[in-house]
């Protein structure tokens, strides 16, 4: 009797599901949580209202591993939001991604996007990724009020590395430390340091060598590379230069790393981070106002030939299937309408040119957005473009270098070994 009852229950469940199944939906895998997830949901709600297609989102912080598992199991999501092109290139080379040029309105796409974004989203001439929610990297943040109170001059755009060193020396003369640095970030610890080295390397050697570097063609033991690390070392290898010294740098999460600028009295005056750190600062210090309480200038230029170069990072969407629903979703993602959600909600910079500056929440984000639109040389975060094992080794190497700068030669030799191994084919 009991057994029969169980069978009836199973049949009823199956029946209910057949009727309850929604007509149209897509599945999206991404890393977003918290405020970013709210923005993503708002963006998807507008999409569902318009098209009737439901969006099922699955979030994970370990995106690489989850995508690998699902692709290998033959069960990929319809669409995934990646945090850099490296994973896209790998998946595209393995033939796992849908060619977007077949499902996007390419005329509109070419009109709305700078060639640079199109190139970054392509592998072997085929378009696979649409970028959105960009950030400008290598900005130097400061607290104008604190600098004024200490009688210091605010840094100006176009300042040089030597200007920066001179300003730092002035702060040291007051018995303070100039820089606040924090590179802890869970399983990605060290990436803040790779941003430092990338910005330095770009400004010392220019965009071509920068590209060669992330493509695995530059030796880590070359004099150029060593010089970039040592330049970085002028900040992090000197406890008088960076607040708290090596132990603090390695143990402080990047999200809290700007805090010493806002303490009373300030413990540091400069902080290098991408444009997205604004939302972290405003979360941690709700009373801090953009422009008056915190502001940014571009990364100090080193070789003036390359001072117009700018490093960016952006999340991107890729598709694993080209169903009609996915086609609608990807066209929506590429539109200025969808990107405006990120601009307004997170201050993420639009890659679609038509995202109006009025969408950005404040003057500072507007400035970052126009900076991105006007830049001559845009390069992507180099570590994100490297092969994953190279990228991982680079992150860890920064942690080791901060811990013991005198080990630089053996750290670079180890990276060179990883490069030779990872790029041998």
């Amino acid at each position, binding site marked *: 009797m009991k057994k029969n009852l169980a069978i009836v229950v199973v049949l009823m469940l199956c029946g209910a599901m057949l009727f309850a199944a929604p007509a149209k939906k897509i599945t999206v895998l991404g890393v977003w949580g918290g405020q970013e997830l709210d923005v993503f949901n708002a963006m998807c709600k507008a999409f569902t209202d318009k098209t009737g297609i439901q969006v099922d989102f699955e979030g994970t912080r370990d995106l690489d591993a989850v995508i*690998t598992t699902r692709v290998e199991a033959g069960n990929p999501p319809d669409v995934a939001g990646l945090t850099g092109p490296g994973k896209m290139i790998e998946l595209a080379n393995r033939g796992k991604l849908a060619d977007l040029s077949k499902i996007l309105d390419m005329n509109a796409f070419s009109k709305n996007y700078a060639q640079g974004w199109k190139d970054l989203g392509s592998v072997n001439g085929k378009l696979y990724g649409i970028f959105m929610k960009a950030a400008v990297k290598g900005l130097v943040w400061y607290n104008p009020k604190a600098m004024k109170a200490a009688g210091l001059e605010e840094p100006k755009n176009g300042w040089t590395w030597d200007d920066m060193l001179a300003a730092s020396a002035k702060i040291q003369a007051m018995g303070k430390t100039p820089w606040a640095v924090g590179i802890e970030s869970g399983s990605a610890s060290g990436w803040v340091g790779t941003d430092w080295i990338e910005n330095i390397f770009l400004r010392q050697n220019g965009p071509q060598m920068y590209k060669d570097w992330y493509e695995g063609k530059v030796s880590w033991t070359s004099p150029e590379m060593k010089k970039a690390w040592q330049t970085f070392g002028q900040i992090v290898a000197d406890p008088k230069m960076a607040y708290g010294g090596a132990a603090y740098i390695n143990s402080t999460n990047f999200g809290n790393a700007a805090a010493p600028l806002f303490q009373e009295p300030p413990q540091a005056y400069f902080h290098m981070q991408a444009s997205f750190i604004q939302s972290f600062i405003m979360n941690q210090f709700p009373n801090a106002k953009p422009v008056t309480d915190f502001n940014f200038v571009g990364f100090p230029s080193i070789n003036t030939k390359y001072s117009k170069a700018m490093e960016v990072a952006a999340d991107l969407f890729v598709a694993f299937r080209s169903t009609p629903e996915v086609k609608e979703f990807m066209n929506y993602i590429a539109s200025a309408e969808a990107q405006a959600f990120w601009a307004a909600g997170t201050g993420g910079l639009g890659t679609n040119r038509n995202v109006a500056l009025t969408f950005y929440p404040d003057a500072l984000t507007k400035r970052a957005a126009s900076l991105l639109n006007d830049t001559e040389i845009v390069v992507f975060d180099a570590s994100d473009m490297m*092969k994953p094992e190279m990228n991982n080794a680079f992150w860890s190497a920064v942690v080791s270098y901060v811990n013991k700068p005198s080990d630089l030669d053996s750290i670079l030799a180890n990276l060179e*070994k990883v490069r030779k191994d990872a790029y041998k084919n």
Partner: protein
Amino acid sequence: MNSQTILMLAVAVLGVPLLLVGYITLSERLLGSAAHKRSSSVRAIFWIAPAVVLLVVFLVYPIITTIILSLKDAASRGYVGLANYKYVFTDRNMLLVLRNNLLWLALFTLVTLTFGLLIALLADRVKYEAVAKSIVFLPMAISFVAAGIIWKFMYDFQPAGAPQIGTVNAVLSAVIPGYQPQAWLFNTATNNIALIVVGIWMWTGFAMVILSAGIKGIPTDVLEAARIDGANEFQIFRFVTMPLLAPTITVVATTLIIDVLKIFDIVYVMTNGNLNTEVIANRMYKEMFNYHNYGRASAIAVILLVAIIPVMIMNIKRFRQGGANA
């Protein structure tokens, strides 16, 4: 929860038991019609068949596949012989990983066992035994990830002069005058030990509970006889308790060794293997999921398996002996 998930849950919760009940009912029917004499040996085969099938599908087949993959290149296209094994035993970073696992193996197992035994012996002699044992056992109930996060806060570092929010540095700077705060997880001299301490904190409770049960199982008349013969407490421990407890200690030790070889979560959450703290399982995870080098990941898995086999055999032997004694 979407409809697909509900369907799968229904199948798992209701379908699997139904299937097995159906299978057994059916096989009993068949046996009933067969000749009575041979039915008992045939029945054994019927009853054990599902377990054997499951073992082959979920254990034997993956092991063989892993061994084959470990002989192939990163993308599992062509055979590379023993190159992956050579990498594991010669690469500088891999050797560091193996060294760390040995460190974990020695320190974690010895200290956890010692503390577990000590606490079990001492708790046996006090009135508030239940409370004391509960407190020591509590961390066992926490997941490794949660423990890692808790201890990350415990080890938090702020520069000298700033308020210390990490318990370890806060206590030490309150007790020791002129103490310089330490970044326990970011100093190559202390970070491995700091991680192992978290493991010990979690597993001492386990060792204690099993050993405590072993101590309770020692007959009191043996202890009384020793006392009457004039043995002091230390002699009783050394010559009566220890030998009688030896089988239990072996079981606890082998369980701890198997655990420590698989250690992953604590390292993943707290340092992710940075600054020379990587262990075998983390390396395997990275090779597999981050670098997509299936060959090397499989080679590491095979080595881990081979390392665990002798311990497993020892454990099974102990179980058998225990069964014979009981």
